[in-house]
């Protein structure tokens, strides 16, 4: 087992990190609250990387940690998920899971060309987005856009159950990678604030109450990050542990995100409670992500099924 990055992966991580830092500052995420087109300049760059959708999970997850870190708006996650399911990497797309009550809404449907619909069976149909009436669903997270679909009658093809199961596992790992990235953003902001902010003539980070919180946040973050990387490796290695590893990754990411967002705002004190401060842009994404592709509780229940039944 080797957790270290290959030179290519290191390059990918550094490039994506720089790209997102430059092209997706907090001001863009904030502008996207009122203006969905604010993501377009960013998308022109991210669109060049959508081929990662059909490549190794480890590479895609590295990239997604950075989009999560930046709370990047736009259809990158959706399109890579679409490509992985359909093999079509020529169009932008998203996936609608009609078969699954844990995932009732569809990501970014108004800014892609195709919608892959998985219906019970499982069966798969690929539609032109222009054929599907969409309804925007407002959530606490302004950086993603969710939609309810009014689906027409589907002419769907059978989808091999194991292909679909593998795609789902990959989706859990991808979601976990994004969440770990967002959690790391909040953690970094909080850690540096704890070093800067003085009360009682000392940095608040010198209080053990704050130190212990940050230590626990850090543990949650590091184990969730490792679990996400491990899950990606089991996918790429077609390892028999992959199902468990992907549930573990999503659950660990959910736990880390929740802990870090709560303690992150608490450690920021009053300033973190304002709209004007950027923290909430990331808090919102971290809060909402837990409910995409199965909640923490749902993944734990599936793990229990695998472990006990």
């Amino acid at each position, binding site marked *: 087992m080797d957790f270290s990055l290959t030179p290519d992966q290191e390059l990918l991580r550094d490039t994506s990190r720089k790209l997102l830092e430059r092209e997706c500052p907090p001001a863009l995420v904030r502008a996207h609250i009122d203006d969905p087109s604010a993501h377009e300049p960013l998308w022109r760059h991210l669109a060049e990387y959508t081929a990662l959708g059909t490549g190794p999970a480890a590479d895609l997850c590295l990239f997604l940690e950075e989009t999560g870190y930046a709370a990047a708006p736009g259809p990158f996650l959706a399109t890579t998920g679409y490509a992985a399911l359909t093999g079509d990497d020529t169009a932008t797309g998203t996936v609608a899971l009609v078969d699954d009550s844990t995932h009732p*809404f569809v990501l970014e449907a108004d800014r892609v060309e195709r919608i892959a619909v998985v219906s019970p069976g499982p069966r798969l149909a690929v539609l032109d987005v222009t054929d599907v009436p969409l309804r925007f669903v*407002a959530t606490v997270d302004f950086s993603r856009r969710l939609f309810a679909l009014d689906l027409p009658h589907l002419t769907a093809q059978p989808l091999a159950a194991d292909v679909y199961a593998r795609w789902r596992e990959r989706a859990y790992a991808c979601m976990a990678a994004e969440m770990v990235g967002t959690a790391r953003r909040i953690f970094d902001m909080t850690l540096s604030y704890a070093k800067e902010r003085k009360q009682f003539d000392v940095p608040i980070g010198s209080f053990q109450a704050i130190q212990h919180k940050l230590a626990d946040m850090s543990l949650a973050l590091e184990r969730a990050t490792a679990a996400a990387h491990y899950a990606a490796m089991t996918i790429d290695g077609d390892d028999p542990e992959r199902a468990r590893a992907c549930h573990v990754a999503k659950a660990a990411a959910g736990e880390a995100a929740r802990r870090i967002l709560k303690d992150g*705002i608490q450690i920021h004190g009053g300033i*973190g409670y304002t*709209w004007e401060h950027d923290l909430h842009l990331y808090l919102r994404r971290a809060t909402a992500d*837990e*409910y995409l592709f199965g909640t923490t509780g749902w993944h734990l229940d599936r793990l229990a099924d695998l472990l006990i039944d």
Partner: protein
Amino acid sequence: MQLAWSPEDEEFRTDLIAFLDEHTPEQMLVGFDFQDVDDERELVPQWLRDWQATLFDHGWMIPGYPSERGGRNCTPVQTLIYLETLASRRLIRSGHFPGYAIVAPSLLEYGNEEQQKLVPAAIRGDTIWCIGMSEPNAGSDLAGLQTRAEVRDDHFVVNGQKVWTSYAMIAQKCFCYVRTDPTLPKHKGISLLIIDVDTPGIDIRPLRHISGTAGFAEVFFTDVIVPRENLVGGLNGGWAITQGSLAHERAGLWVEGVARFEQTIEGLVTLARQQGRAGDPIIRRKIASAYELAASLRALGYKGFASFAQGSSAPEHSYMKMAMSEASKAAFELGMEISGSLAPVTDPVFAASTNRFVHGFFMSFANTIAGGSSEIQRNIIAQRVLGLPRR
């Protein structure tokens, strides 16, 4: 120790219920949420101002006070009945708590005769007050405040900045803590001034809450002239009053807090049924656990209230603020858990019965941060209640 209401208490309750049945404004019945206001001028709508005045005029605003202060000289136990009845009907007394809950009791304790004349209007809500304690560099460390008031013959000249001042945008008066002697140790050079918000040199810049709704403001003071007679409680005597202000804030808080928390738990039960999770053993146990917490805190609160009513300061109050604010955050999280994938959806078309939980979750941080954060509360419990050494 006994569990019974006297006939007088029962009569008090009957009178209260009759009053509420007759006077409760319709807007309150439809589930008014005053935290949802976008326009700060609407922060306290007219009907809510009228409601506060009606409560005052009928002696139901602070029933423990005499009638000229909006009460009816009721007993502490009756006050308890009052607060619980209001909370169980989801009624609020006012859209702006600083005046009746902090300024009025502080002026009654520390103000001179002239200043005490401001009390009825503060309680009736005719005057809206804001509290100027926090500054950019003085939050938890309130004694570190730097807004400076220089003493000149018959007035003060105030320069500096307050922040997160709730209601500043709609207030007429500010209960403002200032540094009057920078040469003294930091707790000893602080004074309390009553400052008219429309005095020249005051600049109020609204800040929005994390939800994007109107809430608080930054307040800047540039050479603001404040008459000498607006000093409350003696020059450099402000620190003692800050301790009082927070005690007043806490004393009433828990009763309303626990009762509101019990409402939230009822809401969780309804939600679990609606979402088909009422049979889920994990959800059942978590709801039961939230109830266990609420019920034990309620008992602790009663106990504290009893000793507070007998005039002794009750250590229970220190526990209540921390426990209630953390417990209500956890209850909103449980609501999100029960809502499942609907939890982050705010859209009323899809999430009318679930969206208040994610909203409440974000709002719940106000109470674990403001008025002494949970970490500061733990320090207080450790050091003042348990007698552990300070660092």
